[in-house]
C-alpha cells in the first residue's frame, strides 16, 4: 500500500513541476489537463487508501532523514490513519474539482500556466501538512500552504490591493506561527522528539502546566491559519485572489488546518480541558462575530468569507469541547458545501464581468438556473436544513455544546445559526431573485460552460447526501480519535434538533418573504450598528492606526535618529576627535628651538615625577 501513499503525495508535486516548465510561456491547456489528471490520480490513491484503512490498515513510513543536530533526529515521516486519510480524500477531491473548474474560470487569463503550478503546489503542501507524522513535518506543510496562499492571493499582482492582501495574509500568519514555533520548541525540550506517537505516548506523565502551555501555543498557530479573532482580517482581504482559490484554500482546505491541528493533537488537548474551553469559547465568539459582519456586507465573496470564518468557529467549538470526530465531520461537510458556494459565486462573477456587489445583481435565476440551484443547495446545506449535509454536522456541534453544559456556547451558536440562515438567503434573494438591477447597469450575464457545471455536480451531490454518512464516519474516525459520549436524554436531543431546525427554517422563510417584498429600507444603513458591522467593527482601521503606521514610524525613527544620528555620529565623533587631536598637537612640532627646549623641560619634569612617586608593585 505504501506506493499509494507516495503516489497520493507526490502526484501533485509532479504536476506542479510539470506546469512550472511552462510558466514563462503562453497559455497552454496541457498544463491544466496534466495537473487535473495528476490530482485525480492523487484522489483515487487517497480513496484506495481510505478503503484499506477501513479494513484496518495504518500506514506509517519514514521516507528519509531531514534534520539532525544534538539530540534531535528528525526524518520525513508520513502516516495514513483514520484521521489523515479523511483529510487526504477531502483535500484531493475538492482540489481536483477546483482544478477542473479553473480550466474554465481562468481560460482567458494570461498567467494560466502559473495558476495551475501554484494550485498543485498548494495541494502538495496541504498533503504534507495532513500526512506528516510529526509536528515539524506539519509545520513544513503549514508554511508551504501559507506560501501558496500568499502567491495565489496576490496572483493578479498588478493590482495593488491584491499584493497588499497577500502580504497581510503571510505576515499575519507569521505572527501566529511564532506562537506555534514556541510550542514546538517546548515540545522538543520536554519530549526530545517531534513525533506524534512518542509525544502522545508520554504526554500523560508531563506536568499539566506545561501541557497547558503547549496547548495554548499550538492553538495560537491554529488561530492564525484558521483566521480566528484577532487574526481574522486577512481572510476577508484574501478574497482578492481568483475565486477558485478562495474555494479551495480559503474555504475548504487551508483554513481548516488549524482545526485539523487540534484534532490531530487531540491526545494532548484532551488532557487539558481548560484549554479546550478557551478554544470553544473563542470559537463560539467568532461564530457570531463573523456572521454578524456577513449580515450587512454587499460584496458577494466577502459574505461567503465571513461565513467560512463563522463555520470555522463552529468547528473549534466541537474540537474544544472534545467532540473531535464532530469537528472533523463538520470540516468535511463544510469543505463540500462551502467550496460549492464559492465556485457558484465564481460563475456569477464570470457572468457579471467580475462585479461583486450583490445589490447590482438580482433576478439572475433566469439566466443561470443551474448555478442558482447549486448555490441554493449549498446554502441550505450551510444553514443546516434537513436532509442536507450541514444539518447533521452542525446539529451535532450544537448538541455537544448543550451536552457539556455549556449553555451560553450553545445559545451563541444557536443565534449564529439564525444569522447564517439570514445572510445566506439574503445573498440568494439579492442575487437570483427580485429586480434585474444588472440590466440597468448594462451587464450581459450568461450561464457558464457545461463542463464547469458538471465538475460542480459531485460537490452538489455530496452537499446533499454527505450527512447520511454520519454514523459510518463516526465509527471510522473514532478508531483513532476519542469517542464522544452524549449523556443527555435522547428526548432532549430530539427537542434541540427540532428547536434549531424550526428556528432556522423560520428565519429562512422570513428572509425570503422580506426580500421578495423588496427588502429593508435604506434608512437602516445610517444606523450606528449597521456602520459598525459594515466597517468590520473598525478592526482593520485599528490595526492600521495602532500597528502598521506606528511600526513604520518607529522604524524610520530607529534608522534616521538612532542609527544615523546617535550611533554612527558617535563613531565618527571618536574618529574626528582623534584626528583633531593629531591636528592640534602637530603644532607642538613647530621646529622652533626654544619651543622644543620647553617641551623637553616638561618631559623631564614628568619623568622625574614618575621616578619619585611611582613604585611598581612587585
Amino acid at each position, binding site marked *: 500500500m505504501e506506493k499509494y501513499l507516495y503516489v497520493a503525495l507526490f502526484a501533485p508535486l509532479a504536476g506542479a513541476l510539470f506546469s512550472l516548465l511552462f510558466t514563462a510561456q503562453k497559455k497552454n491547456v496541457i498544463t491544466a489537463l496534466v495537473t487535473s489528471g495528476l490530482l485525480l490520480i492523487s484522489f483515487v490513491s487517497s480513496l484506495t487508501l481510505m478503503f484499506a484503512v477501513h479494513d484496518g490498515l495504518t500506514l506509517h513510513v519514514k521516507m528519509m532523514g531531514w534534520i539532525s*543536530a544534538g539530540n534531535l533526529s528528525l526524518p520525513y515521516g508520513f502516516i495514513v490513519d483514520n484521521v489523515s486519510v479523511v483529510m487526504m480524500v477531502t483535500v484531493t477531491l475538492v482540489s481536483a474539482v477546483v482544478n477542473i473548474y479553473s480550466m474554465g474560470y481562468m481560460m482567458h487569463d494570461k498567467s494560466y500556466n502559473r495558476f495551475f503550478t501554484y494550485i498543485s503546489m498548494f495541494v502538495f503542501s496541504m498533503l504534507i501538512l495532513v500526512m506528516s507524522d510529526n509536528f515539524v513535518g506539519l509545520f513544513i506543510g503549514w508554511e508551504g500552504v501559507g506560501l501558496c496562499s500568499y502567491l495565489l492571493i496576490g496572483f493578479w499582482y*498588478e493590482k*495593488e490591493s491584491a499584493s*497588499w492582501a497577500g*502580504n497581510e495574509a503571510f505576515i499575519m500568519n507569521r505572527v501566529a506561527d511564532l506562537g506555534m514555533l514556541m510550542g514546538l*520548541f517546548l515540545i522538543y525540550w520536554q519530549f526530545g522528539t517531534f513525533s506524534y506517537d512518542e509525544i502522545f505516548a508520554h504526554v500523560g506523565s508531563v506536568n499539566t502546566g506545561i501541557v497547558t502551555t503547549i496547548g495554548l501555543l499550538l492553538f495560537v498557530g491554529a488561530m492564525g491559519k484558521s483566521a480566528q479573532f484577532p487574526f481574522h482580517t486577512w481572510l476577508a482581504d484574501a478574497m482578492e485572489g481568483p475565486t477558485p482559490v478562495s474555494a479551495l484554500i480559503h474555504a475548504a482546505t487551508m483554513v481548516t488546518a488549524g482545526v485539523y491541528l487540534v484534532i490531530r493533537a487531540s491526545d494532548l488537548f484532551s488532557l487539558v480541558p481548560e484549554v479546550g474551553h478557551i478554544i470553544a469559547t473563542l470559537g463560539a465568539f467568532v461564530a457570531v462575530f463573523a456572521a454578524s459582519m456577513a449580515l450587512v456586507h454587499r460584496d458577494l465573496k466577502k459574505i461567503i468569507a465571513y461565513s467560512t470564518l463563522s463555520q470555522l468557529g463552529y468547528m473549534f467549538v466541537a474540537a474544544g469541547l472534545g467532540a473531535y470526530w464532530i469537528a472533523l465531520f463538520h470540516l468535511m461537510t463544510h469543505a463540500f458545501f462551502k467550496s460549492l458556494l464559492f465556485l457558484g459565486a465564481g460563475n456569477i462573477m464570470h457572468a457579471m464581468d467580475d462585479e461583486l456587489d450583490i445589490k447590482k445583481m438580482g433576478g439572475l435565476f433566469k439566466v443561470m438556473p443551474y448555478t442558482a440551484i447549486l448555490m441554493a443547495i449549498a446554502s441550505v446545506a450551510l444553514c443546516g436544513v434537513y436532509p442536507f449535509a450541514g444539518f447533521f454536522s452542525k446539529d451535532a456541534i450544537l448538541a455537544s455544546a448543550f451536552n457539556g453544559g455549556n449553555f451560553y456556547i450553545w445559545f451563541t451558536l444557536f443565534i449564529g445559526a439564525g444569522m447564517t440562515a439570514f445572510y445566506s438567503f439574503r445573498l440568494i434573494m439579492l442575487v437570483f431573485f427580485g429586480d434585474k438591477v444588472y440590466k440597468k447597469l448594462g451587464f450581459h450575464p450568461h450561464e457558464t460552460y457545461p463542463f464547469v457545471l458538471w465538475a460542480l455536480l459531485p460537490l452538489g451531490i455530496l452537499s446533499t447526501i454527505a450527512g447520511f454518512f454520519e454514523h459510518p464516519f463516526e465509527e471510522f474516525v473514532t478508531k483513532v480519535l476519542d469517542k464522544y459520549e452524549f449523556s443527555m436524554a435522547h428526548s432532549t436531543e430530539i427537542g434541540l434538533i427540532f428547536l434549531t431546525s424550526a428556528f432556522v427554517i423560520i428565519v429562512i422563510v422570513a428572509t425570503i418573504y422580506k426580500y421578495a417584498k423588496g427588502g429593508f429600507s435604506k434608512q437602516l444603513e445610517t444606523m450606528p450598528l449597521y456602520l459598525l458591522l459594515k466597517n468590520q467593527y473598525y478592526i482593520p482601521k485599528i490595526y492600521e492606526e495602532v500597528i502598521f503606521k506606528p511600526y513604520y514610524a518607529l522604524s524610520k525613527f530607529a534608522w534616521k535618529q538612532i542609527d544615523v544620528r546617535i550611533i*554612527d555620529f558617535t*563613531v565618527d565623533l571618536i574618529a574626528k576627535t582623534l584626528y583633531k587631536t593629531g591636528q592640534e598637537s602637530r603644532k607642538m612640532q613647530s621646529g622652533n628651538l626654544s619651543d622644543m627646549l620647553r617641551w623637553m623641560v616638561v618631559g623631564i619634569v614628568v619623568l622625574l615625577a614618575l621616578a619619585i612617586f611611582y613604585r611598581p608593585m612587585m
Partner: protein
Amino acid sequence: MEHILSLIVFFPLIAMFFGFVISKDSVKTFGIAVALVEFIFSIILWIGFDAGNAGFQFVEYAPLISQFGVNYYLGVDGISLFLVVLSTLMTLVSLISLNIKKDIKNLVLAILFLEMTLVGVFLSLDMILFYIFWELSLIPMLYIIGAWGSGQRIYAAIKFFLYTFAGSALMLVGILYLGYQYYLATGTWSFSIPDWHLLVLPFHTQLWLFGAFFVDFAVKVPMFPFHTWLPYAHGQAPTVGSVLLAAVMLKMGTYAFIRFSLPFFPDASVYFLYPIAVIAIIMVIYAAMVAYAQEDMKQVIAYSSISHMGIIILGTFAMNAEGITGSIFLMLSHGIVSGALFMLVGVIYDRRHTKMIDEFGGLATVMPRYATIFGILMMAAVGLPLTIGFVGEFLSLLGFYAVNPYMAFLAGTGIILGAVYMLVLYKRAFFGKLVKQENKDLKDLDKREFTALIPLVALVIILGVYPKPVLTTIDMSVKKMINLMERKALLPETKELLVRVNKVGGTK
C-alpha cells in the same frame, strides 16, 4: 591529499602572481578557472573528509619561530569544513557574475588574494597565523570598495578598514597575553589553537580576555552598536564586494566566537551569555526595523544581514549542539542567500544604475525570471521550510529556547519582522503596475547572470530539503567542543548551565 590544505590556502595566491602576466582581456576567464579549480579542491577536501572523526583532519605542521611556539599549523574539522567550501563557492560565483570593465585585472587579482585570506582564516590552527590572515583580508576588501565603489567610496572603505582594524589591535594584545599565560602555565610557548583549547584559565583572566576578543569579533560580525560601518561598506561597494563581504567575511566573526571564545573561555562565555543574548535580540529586532525603513534595496539586504547575524550569535551562545550546529548552518545559508540577494540587486543596478526601491514597481511583468529567482531567495531569507534558510534559523532558536524561552521568543519575532521588510520590498519592486518608462524594456536575466545564480538557487533548495549530511558533519565537531567546554568549566554555574541546556526531557 597530504598537503591539500596548503594547496587550498596558497593556490589562489600563486595563481594571483601568474595573473599579473595574463592579458587584461582574458583575466576574468583566468580568474574563473582558478576559482573553479580552487572550488574543486575544496570539494575534494569534503569528499576526503572523514565524517566519523570529530577532530582536526589533514593537519599540516611546520615550525616557524620555534622559540615562541609559532608554527605553520593548518587543520580542518566539521566546524570549518563547510565555511571553506562556502568561501570557494562564493568566490567562484562572484567572479562569474562579474561585469566590471574598469581595471578588471586588479580586481580579479584582489579577489583571488581575498580568497586566500578567507580560506586561511578558517584553516589556521595557529593563533598568529590566524591573525595574519584575519588582518590581510582587510586589504583586498579596502581596495575593492575604495577603487570600484560608488559615491562616498573612500569614506566607506576607510571606515570599514579602521573600524575593524581598531578591533583587531585589541585582539592582538589578547592573543599575546594569552600566549604568555600559556607560557606561565606550562613553561613552554605555544600559539597553537588545539593547545590553547586545553588551557584552563582563571575566571578573572577569562573575563578580560573574552572582552578583548569580543570587541574584535563584535565589530566583524557586526554586532550592535558596532555595526554602522556595514551599511556604508555595502552601500558603496561594488556587487562583488558586497557578495563576498556578506557571504563570507561576516562569518569570520561568528566562526571566531565558536572557535575561540567558547572553548578558550567557557566560564566567561556563560558569564556574559545574557548580555550578549540581549545584544543579539536587539540586533534581530532593531536591524529588521531599520531594514524596513530603508529606501535603497541594497541597504535592506545589508541591514537584514545584521538581523540574521543576531540569530547566529544567539544560536552560538545557546551552548548546546542544536543551537551551535544550527548557527553554523545558518552561516552557510545566510552566506548563500545574502550573497545571491546582493547579486540580484547588482543585476538591477547594472540595468538602471539605481537601487532605490521607488524607481521600480511591476518588475515581475518585464523580468519574470528575475522575479522568480528573487522570490525563491526571498523565501529562503524569511526562513520558509524546505529552503536552506529554515534549518539554521529553526535550530538556532530551538537551541536558545533551552537557555531562555522568553529571549528565544523575542528573537523569534525576527521571523515576523523579516517577512515584513522582505515582502514589502518585493511588493514595491516587483508587484503593482509597471509605470516608469525606463523600466518598460528592461532585459530579463542573461546567460552570465543565470550561470552565477542557478547554482545558488539549487543549493537553497537541495540543502533545504536534505541538510542532514552537512548537519551531521558539523554536529560531530560541535559536540566535541561542547564536551571540551564542560570538562574545562571552572565554576559550578557554568557546569550547571551546560548540563541544563544539553539535556532533553523535562528541563524544568
